[in-house]
């Protein structure tokens, strides 16, 4: 693929603003608290949110097609419980993980089927799946977290290091890179963009729109399921009530990162930086010892301001571009 000069530079610039906001927040927290600007704290933040980063990166691709998935929360909880349950029955962890991922795929497959084949709005389809999956998670464990009979190495996935980096950080880093490459250099990214921007055109160009959308729903489901496994091993049990607002975090990160609900635009990098912004705000405000209610208010204000700065900046970029090359001659 040749150099994609125009759109990339535009998008890069938008991410650049996000990056500036991110850096500014870091500088602020680093100067106002002692314990913020430390490697350990960054490791903490990344480990705590590895699952979120991973899922959001994958879900960016889905959102680019103009679809989204609310059932990630339920999938995460369900997969965590199932994984712990299988492990507690004495299955080897790898096998338990594989079976769990297969079950997690069902969420994506059903979501995808409902949206593509039966033309049901992604909101209702995935919200329905969220309810069903959430109920199922509670059901298979009888409402109590699964924690007895787990093997000793149950938590090691999240607690070991690879080359001095915590494993979950490595996993999410690898995942993000894969999705970044998929979004920018493979046909999946291009097709997702085309579908979100102009579904008709994509279909008439011979792209099998349904298959792409279906595939992306499945991809997101796998990541949510993996996120469930990661969370279960992090907290050392399968808790059916874990991460209630996971889907909200995912969607906020993606949108703050510049992908609209209708799709057609967006970058994985934008999503990741946006997610980091949200994460850093939460962590930094905690470090500052601010009352959680004020944190809520501040989070809202920063969210609105960040997206405003971001979009305004993009606008001026656009008009600048219009005036620039090849236009006057």
């Amino acid at each position, binding site marked *: 693929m040749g150099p994609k000069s125009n759109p990339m530079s535009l998008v890069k610039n938008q991410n650049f603003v996000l990056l500036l906001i991110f850096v500014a927040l870091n500088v602020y927290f680093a100067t106002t608290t002692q314990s913020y600007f430390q490697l350990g704290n960054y490791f903490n933040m990344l480990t705590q949110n590895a699952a979120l980063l991973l899922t959001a990166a994958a879900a960016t691709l889905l959102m680019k097609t103009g679809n989204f998935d609310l059932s990630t929360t339920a999938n995460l909880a369900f997969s965590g419980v199932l994984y712990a349950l299988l492990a507690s029955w004495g299955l080897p962890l790898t096998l338990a993980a594989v079976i769990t991922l297969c079950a997690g795929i069902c969420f994506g497959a059903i979501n995808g089927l409902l949206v593509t084949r039966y033309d049901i709005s992604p909101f209702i389809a995935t919200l329905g799946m969220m309810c069903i999956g959430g109920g199922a998670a509670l059901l298979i464990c009888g409402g109590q977290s699964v924690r007895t009979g787990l093997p000793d190495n149950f938590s090691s996935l999240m607690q070991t290091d690879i080359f001095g980096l915590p494993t979950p950080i490595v996993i999410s880093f690898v995942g993000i890179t894969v999705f970044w490459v998929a979004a920018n250099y493979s046909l999946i990214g291009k097709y997702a963009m085309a579908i979100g921007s102009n579904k008709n055109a994509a279909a008439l160009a011979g792209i099998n729109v349904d298959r792409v959308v279906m595939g992306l729903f499945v991809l997101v489901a796998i990541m949510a399921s993996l996120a469930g496994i990661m969370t279960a091993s992090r907290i050392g049990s399968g808790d059916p009530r874990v991460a209630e607002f996971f889907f909200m975090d995912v969607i906020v990160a993606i949108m703050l990162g510049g992908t609209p609900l209708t799709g057609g635009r967006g970058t994985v990098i934008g999503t990741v930086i946006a997610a980091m912004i949200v994460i850093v705000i939460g962590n930094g405000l905690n470090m500052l010892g601010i009352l959680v*209610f004020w944190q809520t*208010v501040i989070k*809202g204000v920063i969210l609105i301001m960040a997206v405003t700065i971001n979009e305004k900046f993009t606008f001026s970029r656009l008009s600048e571009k219009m005036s620039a090359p090849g236009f006057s001659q």
Partner: protein
Amino acid sequence: MRFLHADPQKVVLIGILAALIVGLTFASPHFLSVTNFTNVLLKVAVIVIIASAANLLMVTGNFDLSVGSVLAFSGILHAYMSKHGVAIELSILITLIVAMGWGGLNALTVSVIGINPVIATVGTLFIARGFALLIARWDGGANIMLGLPRDFVDFGRDPVFGLIPLAIVVMVAAVGTFIFIEKKTALGRKAYAIGANLKSAKLSGINTVGIVSLLYVLVALFAGLSGVLQTSRVGLAAPTVGKGLEFDVIVAIILGGTSMLGGVGSTFGMLLGALVVGFTANGMVLLGIPFYFQTIAYGGILIGTLLLSRKFDAKAAA
């Protein structure tokens, strides 16, 4: 047949509603009674009141996720003022004005500045919720109940004409108003136009910014009103109420056939959607179905309704 062709989704909703009512009448001896229907209506009242405005907002292709927080904030604010000596009427008036302020904030960010409604209204959701919790804290607790004057509660509980609870009256009025707006006024026509094609609407001289802003303010106003009604009825203002209300509202709207992208939808459909959800929840509690199964069944109803109406769609087309 002609009717089917007109709007299969509504037909399916009416069908499901009828099936629910008939089924529950047989399944539970306590279902078919005035009290129970009043209960169901009271339960959906908050959703329907907000959704009648939010429906038209969604018809323009926008939506508001902050309604739950604005409701909680308004309830707390009203209780706080009433408790500290502001007359009930005045307190309600001030609360509603402040509620419209939240709508104004949404209007400013989404419609005037033009940022993504999801992020903008989630921002408002956080801010309003934070302040609701803070007001309660300033009052010295996690919620406000002690020291509320007598007429605070009376306002919400005294039936209108000694017959119908106020919330239900407001609900009927809200639905009526918006059916009227949708069918008979320029505002309604323009809202549909904006949702169908924003660019065309601008070129046709429609004040897109103004109309979307107005609707945001109305939605917030209705959310504030619901907050006042709800706290008065319960007799306690908690800043945690209304979590996830935005979803209930959107579910009712989308189930009723309104598209998230705008341009299509109806208030009547929304009402049907809300009633289906309301009767389902009611029926499951009446039958004593455990909580886990309730969520599963709820998800099933959502998906099932749309699957059915797609099926009818296909039949009508053939």
